[in-house]
C-alpha cells in the first residue's frame, strides 16, 4: 500500500513545477496552464489526506475546487481573449499598465 506521504511528496513536486513554469513562461496562456497545474497539485494533496483520514469530506472539497477552477478558466480565458483583441499581445511583460 502506498502511504499518503508519497502522494503528498508528488503533490509538492507538482506544485513546485507549476511555480517554476509560471515564472519561466512569458505568455499569459501558458502561465494560466501553470496555475491549473498548481490547483491540481492541491487537489492531489486533498485526496491523499482524504484517504489517510478515512473521511470523504476532502473529496467534496475537490469537487468544489474543480468547479471553481472551471469557472476561473472560463473567465480568465475570456479576459485573455479580450486583452489580446485590445493590445494584440499576450506577453505578460507588455501588459503592465495596471499600476499607480
Amino acid at each position: 500500500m502506498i502511504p499518503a506521504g508519497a502522494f503528498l511528496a508528488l503533490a509538492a513536486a507538482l506544485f513546485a513545477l507549476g511555480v517554476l513554469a509560471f515564472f519561466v513562461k512569458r505568455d499569459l496562456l501558458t502561465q494560466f496552464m501553470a496555475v491549473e497545474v498548481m490547483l491540481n497539485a492541491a487537489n492531489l494533496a486533498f485526496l491523499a489526506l482524504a484517504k489517510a483520514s478515512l473521511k470523504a469530506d476532502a473529496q467534496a472539497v475537490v469537487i468544489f475546487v474543480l468547479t471553481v477552477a472551471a469557472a476561473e478558466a472560463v473567465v480568465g480565458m475570456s479576459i485573455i481573449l479580450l486583452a489580446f483583441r485590445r493590445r494584440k499581445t499576450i506577453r505578460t511583460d507588455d501588459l503592465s499598465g495596471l499600476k499607480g
Partner: protein
Amino acid sequence: MAWVVFGVLSFFCLGSVAAMIVSRNQAHNALFLVLAFACLGGLFGLLDAPFAAAVQVIVYAGAIMVLFLFAIMMIDLKGGLPPERRRYVLVLAGLLGTVLLAELLLVARRAFIGAAGTVPAEGSGPAGIGHLLFTRYLYPFEITSLLLVAALVAAMTLADKPDRKGVP
C-alpha cells in the same frame, strides 16, 4: 503493483509538466497538460476516489483543455515566446521555489510516518460524495452553482464583440 502504477503515472505527470516548461509551442503545451491531467486522474483512482478521477478526466483533461485549445487557435502567436530572461525573477523564483518544495516535503514526510488508510474512506464512491454534497455541503454546493452562472454571464459579456455597445 500499486507502486509500479504510481511510479509510471507520477513520472509521466511530472515529465509532461517539465516538457511544458521547455517547449515553446503553445499547442504542444496544452497537449502536455492533457497528458499530465490524465495521469493525475489515474492517481486519483489509486487514492480510492473514482468520482474525482472521472471528473478530472472529463472536466479537466476534456472540457477545460478544449477551452485552452480554442483560445490558442484564436490567439495566433507566431513562433512562441522565449523563456524568461530577467535575472532577478529567475533567481528569486528558483530560490523561493526550492525553499517551498523543501517545506512541502517536510510536511509530506510527517504523513509518511503516519499510518496510511488501508481501506477506502467511508462513502468515497459517487453515491457517498453525492450524499455529502446534498447534506453537509448543500449551501456551498448551491453557492457554487451561482458562481458558475456568474462565470457564464461574465464570459459572455467579456468575450462579446466590442463594437455592439462600445463596452468593454
